[in-house]
């Protein structure tokens, strides 16, 4: 009896203690306490502009005074990110903020514990900037029910289209490009009359013709981006997962691409070209390319105005791309996630912080012109947006001087063409079938890519070979797993 009484007392005491703990913790120190001076470390992608350290010095004066912290920024170069990025996350080096995105395997990294869950931290430390965050952005940044990504809130579109030179189009009296056929007419005119363009369509080893074609037919890639293997048809009643080569329109597309290849729209050795279409347009090797709206804008800015560069969206039903295209995350190695998020909140809400990291020091590195466009003083010392896409904000984001005069209308037209697609929030998880998926990617590189740019002498044989190799690589296993995930997602999210 005595014993029982003692355990009861103990249990009561424990319960009391446990109940009190969070309350005590909250009362004891204000969560937004900045009394301790901390040094934060941030990793971004790209190259460090030469004037970056000078800017950061100014930035840190401000941060030290207002938030009692300083920031060091390191850049992960384009040539090394595939190895360095996972290495940084696995080495347990202390990092407080890091760039992340779908295309650098965000979901898989999050699932494997590379990032800290933020759902409890954001409302406390990022309360201000959270007001500007679209709710679906938080959903898209979630894996297994935890929010790991605090994404940029700039809207981007799944539109892909033809970027052509208006001066050449007018020279040959062609109507504006509106679809694949009028685009082909433009390319044919170039091939027939302008031999100096050796690669009329700007084809290279990752050309996007086939992606644009498939998107235009209402297919949605499960990766959410280009170069995917598995698709669903968003127009279908209930989504069924299939590999690109199993699509009923695949044969037609392969024939079309072979026709374009045979007509000389791009070189026969297209798959060995490593310069991208944009570079080749600038060099005068290509007279067009297929890409998205943002690339069109940068092509317009970077090339002579008399080229009258035009862009036509070839995908009729577009979506907002997942905000997970660009995000910041807090690695699990961070010692000061609270302070890192407070700084991130400041960057996302205070134009002084945002502009400095994004454009440099006003008056030295940039100024805003009367239209609100950014005028960069010197592209070589501080080009805009050095790796800052992860915290790009709609309200602060500005176009560079020289953007197309029709920019605002064109963007509005895109916004008007947007249809909802819940699968933009779907994060595919290939971990359970990682071996089969890796083998499938390899089969696609070897047998599908050539067909997707019409490099084939015998379509029937090559298509049969692709199907056979895909089956051997475990296509059915991957498909079954992805179908299970899609069904579960559909059941949970479809209205």
């Amino acid at each position, binding site marked *: 009896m005595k014993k029982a009484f003692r355990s009861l007392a103990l249990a009561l005491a424990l319960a009391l203690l446990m109940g009190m703990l969070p309350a005590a913790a909250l009362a004891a120190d204000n969560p937004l306490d900045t009394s301790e001076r901390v040094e934060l470390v941030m990793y971004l992608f790209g190259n460090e502009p030469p004037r970056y350290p000078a800017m950061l010095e100014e930035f840190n004066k401000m941060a030290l005074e207002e938030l009692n912290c300083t920031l060091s920024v390191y850049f992960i170069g384009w040539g090394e990110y595939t190895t360095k990025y996972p290495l940084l996350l696995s080495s347990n080096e202390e990092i407080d903020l890091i760039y992340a995105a779908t295309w650098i395997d965000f979901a898989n990294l999050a699932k494997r514990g590379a990032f800290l869950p933020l759902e409890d931290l954001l409302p406390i430390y990022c309360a201000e900037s959270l007001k500007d965050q679209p709710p679906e952005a938080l959903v898209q940044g979630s894996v297994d029910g935890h929010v790991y990504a605090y994404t940029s809130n700039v809207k981007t579109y799944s539109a892909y289209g033809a970027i052509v030179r208006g001066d050449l189009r007018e020279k040959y009296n062609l109507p504006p490009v509106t679809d694949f056929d009028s685009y082909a007419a433009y390319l044919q005119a170039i091939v027939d009359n302008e031999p100096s363009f050796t690669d009329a369509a700007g084809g290279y080893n990752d050309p996007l013709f086939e992606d644009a074609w498939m998107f235009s037919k209402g297919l949605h890639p499960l990766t959410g981006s280009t170069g995917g293997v598995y698709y669903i048809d968003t127009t279908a009643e209930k989504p069924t997962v299939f590999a690109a080569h199993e699509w009923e329109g695949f044969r037609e597309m392969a024939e079309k691409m072979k026709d374009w290849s045979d007509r000389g729209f791009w070189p026969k050795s297209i798959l060995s070209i*490593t310069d991208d279409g944009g570079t080749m347009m600038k060099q005068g090797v290509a007279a067009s390319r297929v890409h998205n709206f943002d690339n069109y804008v940068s092509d317009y800015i970077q090339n002579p105005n008399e080229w009258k560069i035009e862009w036509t969206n070839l995908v009729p039903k577009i979506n907002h791309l997942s905000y997970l295209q660009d995000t910041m995350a807090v690695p699990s190695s961070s010692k000061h996630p609270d302070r890192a998020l407070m700084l991130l909140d400041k960057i996302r809400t205070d134009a002084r912080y945002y502009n400095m990291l994004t454009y440099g020091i006003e008056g030295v590195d940039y100024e805003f012109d009367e239209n609100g466009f950014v005028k960069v003083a010197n592209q070589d010392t501080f080009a805009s947006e050095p790796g800052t896409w992860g915290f790009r904000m709609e309200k602060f984001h500005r176009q560079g001087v020289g953007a197309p005069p029709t920019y605002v209308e064109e963007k509005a037209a895109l916004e008007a063409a947007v249809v909802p697609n819940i699968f933009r929030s779907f994060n595919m998880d290939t971990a359970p079938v990682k*071996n089969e998926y890796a083998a499938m*990617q*390899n089969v696609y590189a070897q047998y599908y890519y050539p067909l997707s740019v019409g490099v084939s002498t015998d379509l029937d044989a090559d298509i049969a070979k692709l199907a056979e*190799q895909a089956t051997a690589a475990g296509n059915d296993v991957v498909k079954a797993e992805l179908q299970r995930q899609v069904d579960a997602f559909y059941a949970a999210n479809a209205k």
Partner: protein
Amino acid sequence: MKQRNGFLREMRRNRTLYAMLLPAVLLAVVILYIPMAGLVVAFKNYQYNLGIFDSPWAKYGGFDNFRFLFISGKGFSITLNTAFYNLFNLVTSQALSMVVAIVITEMRGRIFKRATQSVIFLPYFISWIIVGSFAYNFFNYEIGSLNNMMEALGGARVNLYGIPGAWVFIIMAFNCWKWVGYNSIIYIAAITSIDAECYEAADIDGANIWRKIAYITLPSVKPTVIVIFLLNISRILRGDFQMFFQLIGMNGQLFNATDVIDTYVFRSLISGGDVGMTAAATLYQSVLCFLIIIAVNWLVKRTEPDYALF
């Protein structure tokens, strides 16, 4: 008991020598042996927050990470390709290096000799990325210089990017072009260390240049050849990734003839970034290399015991 005494006595007697050896042994242990423990990651389902040793084991008794290599029957063909290319490139580039070394040492004019050697050496400094774009500009169908030349001479254009078999020789040629100058230096060193008296004696006996090469130069560089061969055998399953990737890249048409383990792994995992799977591929290469070098060394030991590595 006696054994231990013997060991201690040996240590005491040569303590200075062992002390001198100690730093090197320590370095080898720290840099080469301790990190080997990390190989365990090949058998793990790696978790970033748990680290190498605390991550859970992979499926199938830890061998899950190796499956992607063999799943579509590719493992065998890429292993064979890798071994074939390395052997083929090793033999061709070493043979050519030796020829170049002999020719250079036989040259008379000092300035001409130096100039020749420098020109042959130059490609060593050119990165594969640049070589890759050379190759494209040389071989492509529409504007490639090779095809322009063929057409000017009345021939037909050839799409080399559609003929996988041709790339065996193109890769071999580029490999030789890049490495011959560098490798020949080792042979030049070996040849210049041959006692000049041998050649003088041969001159007096009336031997011509071919005989001198066949009976003096070649036998004297034989140990060098064998050592180089053995050293390179240990790398036989590691493709020169840069070379294959820059020359072939993502051109799927050519993979059947040109895919090596390194390029296959790169392509399969480029968007996955699974630490365990990459480690598994490297471990697979290392284990096979280890077996091959043991076997080759055993063979050498049986036939030419003096030249064996260990």
